[in-house]
C-alpha cells in the first residue's frame, strides 16, 4: 500500500463505515463514534504532515485519469480543512456524548450518531473531491445530514430545518446548473483540467456567476443569510458548532477553490469588488444584528454571518495584486473562526444547560458547573476579536498587510469596524456571566466536566493557531490552489 | 413491403382513432362516470390494436409477447382504476349525471 493514499482512504471511508455500524447497532454508538473520531483526527494530522513534507498530491479513483475518472486532491487548503473538521468533529462528539441524558429528545440517542458520522463523511468527501459533480453529491450528503441533525431538536427546529433544506437545495441546484454549462463548454469536470482549459467567454462567465450564487447561498453570505440564524440557533449545540464552523466553511472553501482555480482569469476588479462589498455588508450587518440579539445562541449565529464576511475580502485584495497574503490571511481567518466558533457554540451549549435558558439576562449568578465553559468562551472570544497571539489575530494581520500593500484602505476600515462590532457583542455576552442572575437551571453536579473541556480544547487550539504561524504558512502554500 | 408489414401498419393506424375518441369522450361527457366508460373502452381497444399491429409488423414472437404484456398491464391498470374510482366516487356521493 502506498502510504500517502491511506490517509485519504481512511478519511473518506471510516466515517461512512462507522455511520453504518452505529445505524445497525445503535447501542455501540458512543464508543464507535469516539473511537472513529480519534482515528480520524490522527489520520487528518497525518495527512497534514504528509502535505508539509512532500507537498500536494492527487489520487485517481479507480485508476481512471481526469476527463473520465474522478480524483481526490490533497493540498494544503484541503488538508487544513480536513483537520478542522476532525477537530470540531471530535470535540462535538465528546460534548454530545457527555450531555446529561434526560435532556435529550426521545429520538436523539438512536439517530444523532449516524447522522453526525454521515455529515462528517460528506464533509471529508467534499474536501477531498477534485471533481465538480462529485462535489455536488457530497454537498447533498452534507445538506441532508445537517437537516436531520437540526430537525432532531424537534418542535420549531423542524421548521428551521425545512427552511434550511430549501435554501441549501436551491443553492446546490443553481451550482449544478453552472456545472452543467461548464461541462458543455469544456467536457471536463475536474478542477485541475478546467484550470488549465478555461477561457474568458460568455458561457464561462454565466457558469461562474451561477456557481458563485449557489455557493454564496450555501455559505450564507449577506443578503442570502436569512436561513442561517434560525437553523444554527435552534440546533443542538454540537450540531450548531459543526454547522457554523465547518459546513459554512465548506461553501466558502469551494468559492475559494473555484475563484483561485478555474475562474481565476475572470476575477477582474469589478467582480472582486462586488464580492468584497458583499463581504463588507455581511461584516457590518451581521455584527449589528449580533449586537441586538437577546439570546446567546442567536448572538453567536449572527456572528457567523459577520465573520464569513471577512473571508470574502480576499477577492478584492487578491485582484488588487496582494493575492498571497490575502489568501493566506483569509484562509487562516476561516480556520481560526471555525475553531473559535465551535468553541463558542459548545461553551454556550454548556452554559445554557447549566441555566436552563439562553436569554442573555438570565445567564448570570452562580456559575458553578459552567466555569470552564466561560473560560473557553472568553478565550474563543479573544481569538474571534483578533487579540494577539491568537489565530484570529494572525489572519487579520495578514489581511491587513494585504490591504496596506495594495492601498485598500476601505477594506482595512471594514476590518477595523468589524473588529469593533465583534468586541462589542462578545463583551455583551461575557458581561452576562458576572451579573447577578436568577437561580434556576439544573444541579451543577450533573454536568460533566467534559462539556467544558471540549469547548476549552477547541478554544485553546484557536489561540494556538496563532503560534503555529510558520507551519501554517508553509501548509497553505502547498498545492496548486495557492496563488504564488 | 411484405404483407405482414401492411397488415401491421393498418392495425396500428386503425388503433389511433380509438385513442383520439377516448380524449373526445374525456372532454365532452358531462361527468366522471361516462368519462370512465369512454376511457376504459376506447383506450384499451386502441392500445390493443397498436400493440398487435406493431407485433405483427416486427415479425418476432418475443416482441409480440412483450407488446401483449404491455397491453395486458394497461388493461389491468385501467380496469382496476376505473372500478376503484367509480366506487369511491359513488361513496363520496357524486351523483351520476341525469339522476
Amino acid at each position: 500500500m502506498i502510504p500517502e493514499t491511506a490517509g485519504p482512504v481512511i478519511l473518506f471511508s471510516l466515517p461512512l463505515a462507522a455511520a453504518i455500524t452505529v445505524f445497525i447497532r445503535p447501542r455501540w454508538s458512543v464508543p464507535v463514534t469516539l473511537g472513529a473520531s480519534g482515528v480520524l483526527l490522527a489520520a487528518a494530522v497525518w495527512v497534514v504532515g504528509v502535505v508539509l513534507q512532500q507537498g500536494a498530491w492527487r489520487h485517481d479513483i479507480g485508476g481512471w485519469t481526469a476527463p473520465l475518472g474522478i480524483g481526490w486532491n490533497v493540498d494544503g487548503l484541503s488538508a487544513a480543512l480536513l483537520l478542522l473538521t476532525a477537530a470540531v468533529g471530535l470535540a462535538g462528539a465528546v460534548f454530545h456524548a457527555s450531555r446529561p441524558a434526560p435532556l435529550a429528545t426521545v429520538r436523539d440517542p438512536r439517530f444523532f450518531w449516524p447522522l453526525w458520522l454521515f455529515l462528517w463523511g460528506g464533509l471529508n468527501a467534499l474536501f477531498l473531491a477534485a471533481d465538480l459533480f462529485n462535489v455536488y453529491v457530497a454537498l447533498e450528503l452534507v445538506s441532508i445530514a445537517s437537516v436531520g441533525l437540526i430537525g432532531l431538536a424537534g418542535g420549531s427546529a423542524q421548521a428551521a430545518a425545512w427552511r434550511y433544506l430549501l435554501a441549501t437545495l436551491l443553492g446546490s441546484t443553481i451550482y449544478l446548473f453552472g456545472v452543467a454549462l461548464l461541462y458543455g463548454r469544456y467536457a471536463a469536470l475536474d478542477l485541475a483540467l478546467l484550470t488549465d482549459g478555461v477561457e474568458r467567454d460568455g458561457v464561462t462567465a454565466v457558469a461562474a456567476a451561477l456557481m458563485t450564487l449557489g455557493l454564496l447561498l450555501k455559505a450564507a453570505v449577506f443578503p442570502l443569510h436569512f436561513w442561517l440564524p434560525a437553523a444554527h440557533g435552534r440546533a443542538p449545540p454540537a450540531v450548531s458548532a459543526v454547522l457554523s464552523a465547518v459546513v459554512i466553511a465548506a461553501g466558502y472553501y469551494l468559492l475559494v477553490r473555484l475563484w483561485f482555480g478555474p475562474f481565476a482569469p475572470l476575477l477582474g476588479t469589478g467582480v472582486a469588488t462586488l464580492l468584497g462589498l458583499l463581504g463588507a455588508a455581511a461584516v457590518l450587518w451581521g455584527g449589528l444584528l449580533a449586537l441586538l440579539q437577546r439570546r446567546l445562541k442567536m448572538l453567536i449565529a449572527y456572528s457567523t454571518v459577520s465573520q464569513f464576511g471577512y473571508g470574502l475580502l480576499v477577492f478584492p485584495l487578491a485582484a488588487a495584486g496582494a493575492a498571497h497574503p490575502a489568501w493566506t490571511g483569509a484562509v487562516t481567518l476561516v480556520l481560526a473562526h471555525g475553531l473559535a466558533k465551535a468553541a463558542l457554540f459548545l461553551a454556550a451549549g454548556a452554559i445554557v444547560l447549566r441555566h436552563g435558558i439562553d436569554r442573555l439576562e438570565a445567564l448570570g449568578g452562580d456559575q458553578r458547573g459552567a466555569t470552564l465553559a466561560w473560560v473557553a468562551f472568553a478565550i474563543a472570544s479573544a481569538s474571534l476579536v483578533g487579540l494577539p497571539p491568537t489565530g484570529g489575530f494572525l489572519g487579520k494581520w495578514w489581511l491587513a498587510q494585504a490591504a496596506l500593500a495594495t492601498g485598500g484602505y476601505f477594506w482595512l476600515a471594514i476590518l477595523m469596524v468589524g473588529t469593533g462590532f465583534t468586541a462589542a457583542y462578545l463583551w455583551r455576552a461575557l458581561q452576562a456571566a458576572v451579573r447577578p442572575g436568577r437561580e434556576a437551571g439544573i444541579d451543577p453536579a450533573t454536568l460533566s466536566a467534559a462539556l467544558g473541556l471540549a469547548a476549552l480544547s477547541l478554544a485553546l487550539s484557536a489561540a494556538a493557531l496563532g503560534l503555529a504561524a510558520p507551519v501554517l504558512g508553509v501548509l497553505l502554500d502547498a498545492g496548486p490552489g495557492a496563488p504564488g | 413491403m411484405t404483407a405482414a408489414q401492411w397488415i401491421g401498419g393498418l392495425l396500428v393506424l386503425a388503433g389511433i382513432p380509438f385513442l383520439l375518441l377516448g380524449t373526445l369522450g374525456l372532454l365532452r361527457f358531462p361527468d366522471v362516470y361516462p368519462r370512465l366508460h369512454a376511457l376504459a373502452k376506447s383506450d384499451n381497444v386502441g392500445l390493443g390494436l397498436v400493440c398487435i399491429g406493431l407485433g405483427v409488423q416486427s415479425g418476432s414472437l418475443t416482441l409480440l409477447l412483450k407488446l401483449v404484456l404491455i397491453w395486458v398491464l394497461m388493461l389491468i391498470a385501467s380496469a382496476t382504476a376505473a372500478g376503484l374510482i367509480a366506487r369511491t366516487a359513488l361513496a363520496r356521493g357524486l351523483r351520476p349525471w341525469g339522476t
Partner: protein
Amino acid sequence: MGVAGVIFDVLLALALTWLAWQATRAADLFHAVVSFIVFGLLMALAWVRLEAPDIALAEAAIGAGATGALLLSALDRLASRERRRRLLYEPGAAWGFWIPAGGALLGALTLAAWKLPAPGLGNEVRAALGVSGVEHPVTAVLLNFRALDTLLEIGVLLLAAITIWSLGRAPSPLIPAMPSPALPALGRLLFPVFVLVAAYLLWRGSHAPGGAFPAGAVLGAGAILMLLAGARPWIRSSERGPWRWILSLGLVMLLAAGIAGTLAGQAFFEYPPGTAGPLILLLEVAAGLSIALLLFALYLRGEPCEHGYRGKGR
C-alpha cells in the same frame, strides 16, 4: 424524423412549460401534484427524444412512479392544511418581482450560450469501454469510471432514510373509507410482474439500457404497490432484525469494493484486472436491492414499527 420531429419537440416543450406553470401556480394542491406527475411522464418522452433511454427508464420508474406515489400520499396529510396556509412563513412578494427578472436575464444568457462547442467525452468513454468490464457505456460510467459518485449517491439514499426515521414514527396510513376487494388481488397479481421486470432490467444493464437504477426503482414501486394494496409494511426497525443490514447492504458493498482496491495495492475503487465484469454485476445487484428497499423506506415517511403491528390491519 424531419419536420414531424421538430413539431413534436415544439409541442412537447410547450406542454412541459404549461404543466410546470400549472404545477407551481395551480390554486388546487391536487391539481398541482397531478400536473407534476404528468410533467414527469412527458419528461420521459423528452428523454427518449434526446436519445437518453436510460434516463427515460429511470424517470418513468422513479420520477413518475415513486415520486408520484410519494407526493400523492403526502396529500392525505396536507389536503386540509391548504386553507390555513397563511400561517406558513414569510410572504414572498418582494422577491416575486426580482427573481423572475433575474431569471429572465439568465434565460437570455442561456440562449446566448446556444452554440456551445459541446465537445463531450463520447470518444473517451468508447475507448475505455473495452476494459471496463461491461458493454453498456452508461453502466460503465456509473459503476467503473465514476463509481465514487454512485457510492456517495447510495449513501445519500441511506442517509435520507435515516433522516426520515429520525423525524418520528411512520404515520399509520389512513384506511380508505370503502376498502375495495379488488385491491389485494391486484397487488398479488402485479407484484410478481414487478419482480420479473426488475430482474430483467438488471440483467440487461450490462449491455443495454437498464441496470441497477431502473431495476431498483421498479422493485421499490412494486413494494409500494403491495403496501397500497393492503399489505402491512414489513420493514422493521428493530436492532435485532436483519432490516438494518439489508438497507445498508448497497453502501457496505460499494465501500468494500473501494477499500479492496486500496488493500490490493491499487487505487481506491480500482478493480483487479479481469474481475471488473463479475464485480460490477455483484455491485449492481446489491445497489439495485438497496435502491428498491430504500425507496420503499422513504415512502413510509417515518421509522417503521420495531416489532410488528397490533390491530387487525387489512
